[in-house]
């Protein structure tokens, strides 16, 4: 992994200036001390939740739920997407339905989930799945439909059919487009897990954020927010972005050729 010193310097400077401005705003007292804590107070909160392992436990729980929920979304979403292709009537109806539910706010699923599933891990997973599955269905449906027919013709001509056609033609041909859907689904799932944890969990990152608020501990609130932001960023940049770039460069779609 090539690390550009210039990029790192820019990021570090950006970060430092941000902290500097924050400290200045705090010192000037533009917001009451209890509403906007100093960078130092936030650092203290960080230290506290790191040292008592709360932060790591929280991250572990949140990511654990997220990964399970998201994997289920991918599995179910793909199956539904493929069913939509096979059964055209279902495909058309489900397409509109999915589009409507795609941007349905994840928090709005919470009351329904509490009543239907319960105030527990399964309920949280439900919210995560409902928030992300439609990205996967829609992207599977459109990715597979948009495979140029000529690829299918060539593959069939060369003897691919049934499962081998699916594994060796459909999936690789649809992959660049599928990855985009997966990235979108991931970000929806991330939104959903934090929201669900604020509203219906007693552990996890979202819960830590909520505790901060309950106790007017703005330092903790901001420390949680920073953690949530960082993890979301890291996963996207280190995992998904790289995956997408790898596929795109192989296909010759990458911007730096």
């Amino acid at each position, binding site marked *: 992994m090539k690390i550009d010193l210039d990029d790192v310097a820019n990021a570090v400077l950006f970060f430092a200036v941000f902290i500097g401005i924050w400290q200045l705003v705090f010192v000037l007292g533009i917001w009451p001390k209890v509403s906007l804590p100093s960078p130092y107070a936030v650092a203290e909160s960080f230290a506290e939740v790191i040292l008592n392992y709360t932060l790591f436990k929280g991250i572990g729980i949140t990511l654990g739920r997220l990964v399970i929920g998201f994997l289920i979304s991918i599995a179910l979403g793909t199956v539904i997407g493929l069913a939509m292709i096979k059964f055209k009537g279902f495909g058309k109806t489900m397409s509109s339905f999915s589009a409507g539910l795609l941007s349905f706010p994840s928090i709005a699923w919470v009351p329904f989930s509490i009543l239907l599933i319960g105030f527990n891990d399964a309920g949280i997973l439900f919210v995560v799945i409902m928030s992300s599955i439609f990205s996967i269905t829609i992207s599977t449906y459109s990715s597979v439909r948009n495979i140029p027919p000529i*690829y299918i*013709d060539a593959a069939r*001509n*060369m003897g691919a059919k049934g499962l081998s056609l699916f594994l060796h033609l459909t999936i*690789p041909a649809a*992959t660049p487009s599928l990855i985009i859907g997966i990235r979108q689904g991931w970000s929806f799932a991330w939104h959903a897990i934090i929201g669900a944890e604020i509203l219906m969990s007693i552990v996890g990152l979202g819960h830590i954020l909520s505790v901060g608020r309950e106790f007017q501990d703005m330092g903790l609130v901001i420390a949680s927010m920073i953690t949530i932001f960082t993890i979301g960023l890291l996963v996207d940049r280190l995992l998904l972005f790289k995956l997408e770039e790898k*596929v795109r460069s192989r*296909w*010759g779609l990458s911007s730096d050729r």
Partner: protein
Amino acid sequence: MLYAGDFQLTKLEAKNITKYFQHENHRIKALDGINLKVEAGEFVCIVGPSGCGKSTFLRIVSGLETKEEGEVLFDGKPVNTTSPERILVFQEGALFPWLTVSDNVEFGLKMAGVPKDERREISSRYLDMMQLTKFANSYTYQLSTGMKQRVAIARALAMDPDVLLMDEPFAALDAQTRDLLLVEMQLIWERTKKTIIFVTHNVAEAVVLGTKVVVFSNRPSVVKKEVVIDYRRPRLVEDQNLAKFQQDVMKELKPEVKAGSKNKP
């Protein structure tokens, strides 16, 4: 299959192929009873006015497209589906962008269950034949159009099909590349002795390559004339002696093109 008493082997026969298309809200008859016999080892070139259904005919022969009437006989037996015995080389190559050049060439072999080492050996051989060995591990976006077409041909040949169907494979190439490939194509045919059906709109190309040139009429198409090209090999496109054959073909083709331009919506 050899039939007792046959002196020649009819590899492929199209009998009374008829095809309709749906255009807006009326049916258009594209092919009106195409009859064509192709003997084993022949290099048959099909020419015809634009939109006359040459490509459609080729796709029907390959089994990728359906027909309303008629049959396609392969080694005397009717065929309806696509098969690796009749490999189609598309106009745009249709190489798979997610595979390297050699993986592309090996695709059909992989589908047929050929083991890895053997696949590698076969693909190397054909890439070598097409002078693309250096690019075995490149991805397709790194190749020029001419190179992509050569990979497509290598991929088709690697499957060792009985019949090679080629749908205007050189249409998108520049003149020099095309001229080179015309020579190569003849060499490949001599070496592999394949039966080839080659669709093109370029009469000079058809005359250079074909043992015979089949002229399709304007839509609804029938086989207007088969012009035998009795000339030594290898033929070069700039050879003036081919002019006579070109004129023979053009004589049949020109009126069809003129009639066709009147038909256009």
